[in-house]
């Protein structure tokens, strides 16, 4: 366990996913950075212990994938391969199988995309693919919506973590449906829940954590910032603040003011 995560007087706050103990609440995507060096610095400053990766056609001349993979291995982070862009169950399952061999991990971020404009999951294909992969020994991280019935079916299929979207991938809109996300959290209090996609600002990530979400997965918000490494650090701080706030049990909101300074003992000066 990371000693840095143990604060005086507080129990260590560790997220357990498929038996892995994770200290950082940030899962970071590795795409769209201005350069490999900036990506590496962003990963370092984010504190992320899990990064997402993908599988794409290797080019004969540059062998770009080989140097990328070496860099990721040198950083010592866990990888979560995705099935990004897959639109059918067969494509997603085959991609997951290839990723398992290539990256040497049973983890897969399962995406079965159903719609091009929103990149929202085809939840029917997602559930079917999750069932096939879980049966085959994969540890599936499904990219899903906040739909409770779909969530239940994914858990029945064997998923031990759920990753509902905040907003469409790459949109930066934040948490589009706070009610739906709160509802999902309330229905599955013990299932690790990760908001995946749509996060644009550290405040969005903090809001997810304040709701009781276990982690946040994001990519574009860091990669497309003017200073990605600095934004990665900003997200790390926001996530830590949001998580601490959740554990500290926030106050109830109310409609009318309530004076915080004592009313008793107030001088009469008129």
């Amino acid at each position: 366990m990371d000693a840095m995560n143990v604060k005086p007087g507080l129990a260590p706050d560790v997220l357990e996913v498929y038996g892995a103990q994770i200290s950082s609440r940030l899962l970071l995507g590795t795409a769209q950075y201005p350069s490999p060096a900036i990506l590496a610095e962003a990963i370092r400053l984010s504190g992320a212990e899990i990064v997402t990766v993908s599988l794409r056609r290797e080019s004969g001349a540059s062998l770009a994938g080989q140097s990328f993979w070496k860099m990721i291995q040198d950083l010592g982070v866990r990888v979560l391969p995705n099935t990004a862009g897959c639109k059918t169950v067969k494509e997603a399952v085959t991609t997951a199988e290839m990723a398992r061999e290539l990256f040497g991990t049973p983890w897969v971020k399962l995406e079965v995309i159903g719609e091009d404009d929103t990149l929202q999951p085809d939840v029917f294909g997602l559930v079917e693919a999750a069932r096939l992969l879980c049966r085959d020994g994969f540890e599936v991280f499904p990219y899903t919506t906040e739909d409770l019935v779909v969530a239940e079916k994914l858990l029945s299929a064997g998923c031990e973590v759920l990753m509902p979207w905040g907003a469409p991938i790459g949109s930066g809109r934040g948490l589009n449906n706070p009610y739906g996300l709160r509802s999902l959290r309330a229905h599955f209090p013990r299932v690790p829940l990760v908001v995946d996609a749509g996060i644009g600002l550290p405040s969005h990530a903090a809001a997810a954590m304040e709701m009781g979400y276990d982690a946040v997965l994001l990519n574009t918000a860091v990669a497309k910032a003017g200073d990605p490494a600095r934004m990665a650090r900003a997200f790390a701080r926001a996530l830590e603040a949001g998580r601490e706030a959740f554990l500290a049990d926030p106050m109830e909101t109310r409609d009318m003011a309530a004076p915080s300074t004592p009313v008793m003992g107030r001088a009469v000066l008129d």
Partner: protein
Amino acid sequence: MKIVVNGEASETAAPTLAALLAELGFAEAIVATALNGSMVRAAKREATPIADGDRIEILAPMQGG
């Protein structure tokens, strides 16, 4: 024979998938392979013959979100 490698038409005399990878300079590379839409594990590449019209995918680790 005519085959399609990563979406591009190509000619090869390589008898097996392993030989094709070597021909393309991927002998030492970390890649995953598929033949006509089905995965071929690394251990099976030597024993996987290539036929005219085959579609081959050679995938590598890449950045992803």
